[in-house]
């Protein structure tokens, strides 16, 4: 097969060299590399889904703490949707509650007064482990495919690019082709690998829409949870105090003020 592949010949010599490539190159080099890259991308996606950590449970005190912080943030953000009276009631209640620090989750280690070492904290090391696994899942296939292309498909011109490139690309894209004055548009297999790496994102998007969406959703929701889990009671208490301050000074405008005028203006 290799002898078949190496049968590219120079048809005309001169300033603009026009090469005649063996058509078998397409079927034995171009298509296999493309198929392998697409399949590897799909496999990588599934492996990443499989090694992603599942949803972890949290103690109830932690959830309560998070919910009250969220409640205060929501009140500041969307307070204009309730009437003045309800806002004042909630404001009074929440600012008092948060300032008192009633719902700060206190673990045993924190009560002793010692700060836990982040390196020995199981939640932290789990997060680092999953990150490392994710990175491995993305760069190991890249390295393997690059090695595969470099090892089996080196030393011949594979294709002609439809656009000209500057001479600086020559060394990278024509690696293994020992010609000093060949046009940079004639490139070897490794450049098809590079083009595929850069251009396959849209293809993966079209092939695996749902799974990618799910993964994005997981990735978006995870950091918040982990942050919550890692936060120290002292930090949480400070956050609650500052939220209580925010609520105390929050200006309230009710959306029902002058609502008649606005509606009339809308249909005037």
């Amino acid at each position, binding site marked *: 097969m290799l002898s078949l592949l190496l049968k590219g010949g120079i048809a005309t010599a001169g300033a603009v060299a026009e090469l005649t490539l063996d058509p078998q190159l*397409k079927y034995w080099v*171009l298509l296999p590399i493309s198929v392998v890259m697409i399949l590897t991308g799909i496999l990588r996606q599934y492996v990443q889904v499989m090694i992603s950590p599942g949803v972890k449970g949290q103690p109830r005190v932690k959830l309560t703490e998070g919910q009250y912080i969220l409640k205060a943030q929501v009140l500041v953000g969307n307070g204009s949707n309730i009437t003045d009276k309800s806002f004042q009631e909630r404001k009074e209640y929440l600012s008092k509650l948060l300032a008192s620090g009633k719902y700060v989750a206190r673990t045993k280690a924190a009560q002793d007064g010692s700060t836990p070492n982040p390196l020995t904290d199981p939640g932290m090391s789990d997060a680092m482990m999953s990150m490392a696994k994710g990175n491995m899942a993305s760069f190991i296939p890249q390295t393997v495919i690059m090695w595969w292309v470099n090892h089996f498909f080196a030393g011949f011109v594979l294709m002609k690019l*439809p656009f000209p490139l500057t001479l600086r690309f020559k060394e990278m894209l024509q690696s293994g082709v020992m010609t000093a004055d060949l046009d940079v548009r004639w490139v070897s297999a490794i450049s098809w690998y590079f*083009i595929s790496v*850069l*251009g396959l*994102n*849209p293809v993966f*998007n*079209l092939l695996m829409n749902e799974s990618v969406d799910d993964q994005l959703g997981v990735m978006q929701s995870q950091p918040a949870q982990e942050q919550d889990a890692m936060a120290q009671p002292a930090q949480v208490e400070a956050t609650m105090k500052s939220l209580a301050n925010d609520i105390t000074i929050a200006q309230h405008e009710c959306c029902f003020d002058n609502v008649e005028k606005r509606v009339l203006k809308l249909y005037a």
Partner: protein
Amino acid sequence: MDRSDQFDKPVKSGTNIQDNKKRYERLMDKVCLVAGAVTGILQLESTSGFVAFLITYLLTAALYVLWICGATPGQYYESVISNILFDNFMRELMGFIMAWTFSFALIG
């Protein structure tokens, strides 16, 4: 009346905007890959190929805004210019170049 200015602005849902972005991206992916393959089959080279990409990209964006968004894209996106024109540009260009190179080599 000044106080009520903030209530006159329409509220946009973040989830739906995300969904709209994804929808546009998917459409652009399809269009640009097909356009790249067509450009390669037509054996267009260098400048004319990139011009073909620009025409495809801008025409698709214009048609999307006029037809699918009903000429009011501001309803569906946070910042129209950046979301429609610039966010996906490099990604689509790379996809186009890949499809173009592939079909160019396969046909040529």
